[in-house]
């Protein structure tokens, strides 16, 4: 084992040498003329608000210019949630006898934690909704808001136990996650039906024009991302803490 470890240090040294050698050739940190800042991003910065109605350019790029990419990301985390459930054997083949569930209570609540979480959780939920809805004009969006709401739900489960937390089962969470991804994809399909490209919000049948319409479309997909991220994160937590014993 020792000789193997000594051998493993070799690729580490090679990787370090390559990184430091190549690092000298990179553009100066903070240079406005670096290649990364000259090609695609000026187009986004100069046109984002006029074209998409979102002053926050990160949201504009994420939810409008590259929303097909973001659909892929949402499907990635949805698939990860499914993979967790399947790896941990949360679902059984029909006809197979269900394995005894692990009934251990993972909560470590005390009176102090209970009182603190009662104060904290309403504000966490409110802040999560604010981050999603206000994501077009300030830093925020579906991914961030979903993570905050999932943190609130997981905190509730940690302090009060899975049974006392928000009583949504594994299957319910799976339905919410699917609804989020489905909302995203169906907004894309609606614009396809009305004669535009997939996820081109200009085709949505809402009586608004230009940037305002696109802002509403991207808010819709942000809500889909929000539901998907929240449900998948809670799903992974539930799958990890309760599961069938071998």
């Amino acid at each position, binding site marked *: *084992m020792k000789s193997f*470890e000594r051998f*493993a*240090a070799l*690729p*580490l040294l090679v*990787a*370090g040498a390559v*990184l*430091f050698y190549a*690092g*000298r050739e*990179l553009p*100066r*940190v*903070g*240079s*406005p003329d*670096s290649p*990364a*800042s000259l090609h*695609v*991003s*000026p187009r*986004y*910065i*100069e046109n*984002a608000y006029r074209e998409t109605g979102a*002053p*926050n*350019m*990160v949201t*504009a*790029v*994420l939810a409008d210019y*590259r929303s097909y*990419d*973001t659909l892929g*990301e949402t499907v*990635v*985390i949805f*698939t*990860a*949630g499914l*993979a*967790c459930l399947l*790896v*941990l054997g949360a679902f059984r083949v029909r006809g197979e006898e269900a394995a005894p569930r692990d009934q251990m209570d993972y909560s470590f609540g005390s009176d102090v934690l209970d009182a603190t979480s009662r104060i904290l959780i309403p504000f966490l939920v409110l802040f999560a909704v604010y981050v999603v809805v206000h994501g077009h*004009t300030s*830093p925020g*969006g579906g*991914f961030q808001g979903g993570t905050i709401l999932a943190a609130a739900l997981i905190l509730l489960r940690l302090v009060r136990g899975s049974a006392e937390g928000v009583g949504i089962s594994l299957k319910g969470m799976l339905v919410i996650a699917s609804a989020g991804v489905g909302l995203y994809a169906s907004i894309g399909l609606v614009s396809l039906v009305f004669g535009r490209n997939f996820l081109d919000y200009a085709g949505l049948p809402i009586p608004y024009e230009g940037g305002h319409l696109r802002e509403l479309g991207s808010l819709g997909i942000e809500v889909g991302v929000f539901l998907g*991220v929240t449900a998948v*994160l809670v799903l*992974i937590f539930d*799958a*990890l803490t309760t*599961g069938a*014993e*071998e």
Partner: protein
Amino acid sequence: MSFLWSLVDYFLTSILFLVGLYGILIRPHLVRKLMAMNILQVAVIVFFITLGYKDGATPPIQRAYEDSPVARDYINPLPHTLMLTAIVVSVSTTGVALSLLVRIYRRFGTLDENQLLKKLK
């Protein structure tokens, strides 16, 4: 020397990357390998965010009084967007890896690589 000093951010992220690589290659415990993988991902994310920085620029949120924004005044929004999605991928891989580790622990009762290799023989 001042030329290298202006690139110090890149070298620091390189060191962070190497810390993660060291953990993945050499530490025998699987949970530590997973934590090292997260450190490596954070190094890549910080590297991309560093590439998007511009001197004297503000975050990429358009000011209300400005009609035609100039690219020089706002930092590059593209690395931020891409890294937002990279963070999501990092969370997903961590979740799947943790559930695999739970399965391994239930089957073999250990997460130490050397003991696992012995038990697999």
